[in-house]
C-alpha cells in the first residue's frame, strides 16, 4: 500500500512502482518484488539481477475496503488483494474493475493508474493497480 509520502521517497521508488521491476537470484532462480540486494536462500552465493515482471498474476486473497484511509475516500468501495505473480512471488495491490465479481483464483493484469492525489495542490501519485482480466468466468 502506498501512503502519503515525502516527495524524494516517492521519486526514488517511482521506477519500480511504475514498471514492476524487481530482482532475480540467478543462482537459485528466485524472484523478488520489491527488489532485494541479498538472496535469503543463497546468501553470499546468490547473484541478484534486475528483473522485469510481466504484470500477469492471480488473486490469492483479498479484502473489500469500505472505510478508507485519508486520501482514498473517492475510491470506495475498492479491493486490496494479495496477487501471486506469474513468475512467482506475491505482491499486495489495489484491484480495479468489476470488484463485485472478485474471487480468489481470478486472473489479473497490471494497469497504470492514479494511486492518490496529495490534496488539491500536491503531487499526483501514479503506479500500478490490478485489473480483473476479461473472460475470467
Amino acid at each position, binding site marked *: 500500500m502506498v501512503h502519503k509520502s515525502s516527495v524524494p521517497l516517492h521519486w526514488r521508488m*517511482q*521506477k519500480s512502482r*511504475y*514498471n514492476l521491476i524487481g530482482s532475480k537470484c540467478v543462482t537459485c532462480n528466485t524472484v523478488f518484488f520489491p527488489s532485494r540486494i541479498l538472496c535469503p536462500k543463497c546468501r553470499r552465493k546468490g547473484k541478484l539481477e534486475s528483473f522485469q515482471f510481466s504484470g500477469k498474476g492471480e488473486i490469492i486473497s483479498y479484502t473489500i475496503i469500505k472505510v478508507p484511509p485519508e486520501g482514498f475516500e*473517492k*475510491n470506495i468501495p475498492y479491493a486490496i488483494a494479495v496477487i501471486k505473480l506469474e513468475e512467482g512471488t506475491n505482491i499486495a495491490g489495489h484491484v*480495479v*474493475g*468489476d470488484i463485485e465479481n472478485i474471487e480468489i483464483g481470478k486472473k489479473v493484469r497490471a*494497469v*497504470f*493508474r*492514479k*494511486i492518490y492525489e496529495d490534496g488539491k495542490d500536491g503531487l*499526483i501519485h*501514479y503506479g500500478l*493497480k490490478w485489473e480483473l482480466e*476479461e473472460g475470467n468466468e
Partner: protein
Amino acid sequence: MSVGIVGYGCYIPKFRITVEEITKVWGENPENIKKGLGIEEKSVPDIDEDTVTISVEAGKNALLRAGIKPEKIGALYIGSESHPYVVKPSGTIVAEALQLGTDLMVADLEFACKAGTAGIQCCISHVKAGQIEYGMAIGADTSQSRPGDALEYTAAAGGAAFVIGKDPLAEIEGTCSFTTDTPDFWRRDKQDYPRHGARFTGKPAYFKHVVSASTNMMKKLGLRPSDFAYVVLHMPNGKFPTRAAKVLGFSMEQLKQSLVVTRIGNCYSGSSPLGLCNVLDVAKPGDRILMTSYGSGAGSDSFVINVTDKILERREKAKKTEYYIKRKQNIDYGRYARIMGKLKTE
C-alpha cells in the same frame, strides 16, 4: 526508405453513460438528442484514470505493435487539453512508465482536439531529418463538460499512440495543415469547464478547416476521394464528420469504419487518432487513408497514409480498438457525476 506509423495502439476507459441516462437528468428528449448528435453513449474515465494513465496504456499497445526496444524512442509528444498538471509535463511521467529512457525529447502539446496529430507531424519531421530513429505521438483526453451543456452528451475519454519511424506498417505519404484565428471554443486558466460559441462551432470552424485541409492535402498529392479506401475525420459528434465527408466527395462506405464516436463519444485529442486505429485494425496492404483532425481555435492537420504489408503481422500483437469499445460497463448519472467531480463537496 519511407517514414510512417511503425506501431499504433489505443485505450478507452471501460465506463459508458448513455444519452438516455443524461437526458433523464435534464428533461430532454433522448431521441431528439441521439438523432441530432448521432451518438448512443460515451466513454467515462474511472476515478483513477486521466490523460497520463490513458497515454501509458495506449503507448504500451503501440510499442507492442512496433516491436522495438522502448529506449529507441527519441521523442515523445502528448497532445491533450486535459493534462493533469498545469505545470509539470504529462510526457515525463508517461516516458518513465513506458521505460523510454533519458536520451529523449519530451513536450506536451495543446491545440484543443488536434494536439495529438500535431505530435505526429513533429515526429515525422524529426525522423526525416535524421535526428531520431523513432518518435512517439499520443493524443489523449478526459474531456470536461459543464453539467447541462450540450457537450455533456459527447465529451468522452480515450486516446491513441503512434510510433513513427522507418519501415512502417502504414507510410505517411504527406501531411499539411490549415490554421486560422477562430474563437469557437476555449477555456481560460483556473476554469473547470470550457465555453463555446454554440452554433458558431459549425460552419466557420469545423467545416471550413476540415474541408480546406483535406482538399489542400489531396491537391498536393494529386489525389481524389476515389483514390482512398478510408477517410477519418475529427468526430465532435456523429453528424459533423458525416456531413464533411459528403462535402468532400467521400461515401459513407469510406467513412463508417472510422466513425467510433457513435459508440464512445468525442475523445477530443484522441478522436481522429482512435478513428485511425479502428481503420488500421482492418485495412489491407495498399489501402490509402485520408485523416484530418480538427482543433478549435482553430486548425486542421491532414494526412495521406498508405498501408503496407507490415500491417498483417503487427496489428495482431496488441488489443484492437473494437476490444476496448466492446469492453464496457454502463453507469448511472449519479456515479458519473461523482467520478467526474461534478458534485462540489467543498
